[in-house]
């Protein structure tokens, strides 16, 4: 546990030096939401889609950042060195997840706050919107950790995002209500975590309470745990 925290604080120290990345992580979702609010000013579009995007943008940003960060560890040789120290594989993955979860909390607070400031209305409890947005970001970060194991180069790492996120994006109910989709796609959407993230946000914007979204939130948490386990399982001490 102490090595997990040590690793998390090391990752945060790295982020502290990289202010531009932090500004992008927190500022970019705000910028995109701002553009949307401006474009659809005076319509109900922001109320309808805003909460979903508040959950989606952080997920994508965090996925990219963590998959590149772990690839960097692999290529710089630091991961190889870490694998010769008492650091356990779970410490490494959990350390990263924890550090980025902290950043995700700040991100979701700022992004939700900004969305409200530019006129988004949420009928459900706001703290739940923040919680789901943060869980989405953590999910993105854990999926990124797991996906980076599949990437052998920067080119592959960057494309893991469209490869893993876009199919979920298409079937999650954002483009078309899920009950109108072809049956097979609807089944497919049920095994993707993003579906539950979007569903929870949709319900919250329509006035749902904790009891209504607890199921979806539970599924997101399960996917986070699953992604962490996958990330640990795909990490290899011995490499070619």
């Amino acid at each position: 546990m102490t090595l997990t925290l040590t690793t998390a604080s090391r990752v945060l120290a790295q982020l502290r030096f990289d202010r531009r990345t932090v500004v992008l992580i927190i500022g970019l979702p705000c910028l995109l939401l701002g553009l949307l609010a401006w474009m659809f000013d005076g319509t109900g579009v922001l109320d309808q889609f805003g909460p979903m995007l508040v959950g989606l943008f952080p997920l994508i940003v965090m996925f990219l950042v963590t998959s590149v960060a772990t690839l960097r560890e692999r290529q710089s040789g630091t991961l190889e060195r870490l694998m010769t120290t008492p650091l356990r594989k779970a410490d490494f993955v959990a350390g990263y997840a924890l550090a980025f979860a902290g950043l995700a909390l700040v991100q979701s607070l700022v992004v939700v706050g900004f969305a409200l400031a530019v006129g988004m209305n949420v009928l459900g409890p706001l703290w739940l919107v923040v919680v789901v947005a943060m869980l989405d970001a953590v999910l993105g970060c854990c999926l990124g950790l797991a996906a980076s194991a599949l990437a052998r180069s920067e080119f592959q790492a960057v494309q893991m995002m469209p490869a893993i996120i876009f199919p979920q994006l298409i079937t999650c109910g954002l483009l078309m209500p899920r009950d109108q989709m072809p049956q097979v796609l609807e089944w497919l959407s049920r095994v993707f975590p993003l579906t539950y993230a979007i569903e929870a946000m949709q319900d919250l914007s329509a006035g749902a309470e904790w009891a209504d979204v607890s199921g979806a939130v539970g599924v997101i948490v399960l996917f986070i745990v699953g992604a962490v386990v996958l990330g640990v399982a795909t990490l290899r001490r011995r490499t070619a």
Partner: protein
Amino acid sequence: MVNNDVAVRVRGLRVERGGRPVIDGLDVVVPAGQVVGLLGPSGSGKTTLLRAVVGVQAAVTGDVTVLGEPAGAAGLRHRVGYVTQAASVYTDLTVVQNLRYFARLAGLPGAGAEAAVRRAVEAVDLGGHEKQRVGTLSGGELSRVSLAAALVGDPELLVLDEPTVGLDPVLRRDLWNMFRRLAADGRTLLVSSHVMDEATRCDRLLLLREGTLLADTTPSELLESTGAPDAERAFLTLIEQREAPTTSEEGTR
């Protein structure tokens, strides 16, 4: 031999990389408390052997025993320090932040970690650079930070892959003096190099070529047996002896 006298024992090691054997049937013994030089041209399998010793090399067959345990065993991870060929430290952190992280990973508590960091900075002569970001250091300084990150945990066995590449002669001499001091304190050092001059600073030499052991000797024995004036020419002599045993008549004019 008693186990305590042997830091690393390699028997019948075979490693494949990219579908071909890089090391094929290697037997090596590294005595404890000595500086053992692993010498050979690039591509001879030095890094692969070192990676097998620290337990990060895949596709390994044969037997590698380190400090009495199988290579890579969890119990070894605080007893073995490894420095990769390319500097493996975080370039976006300062010298002290890097060393502090590796000190804590080695299990040193807060105050102990700070003292160990100070000692490691001193050992690699990086005083004055403590708060500097590693990415802004010179190449030689960078590799010293990488070395310090292994020293900071004070391991019993140090596995160093070309730690003196790109360093000036004064610093190289100082580092080798430090290696000698560490060995005098009972640490074992397995140091690879392709600079043959450094051979004379070792207690024992392992000469590697194309994944096989060309010689396991001492610096004086090497010069004596080959009659060569320095390690580099001794190495060439050994290769010529190996490659042309049948054409030796032509060689003696």
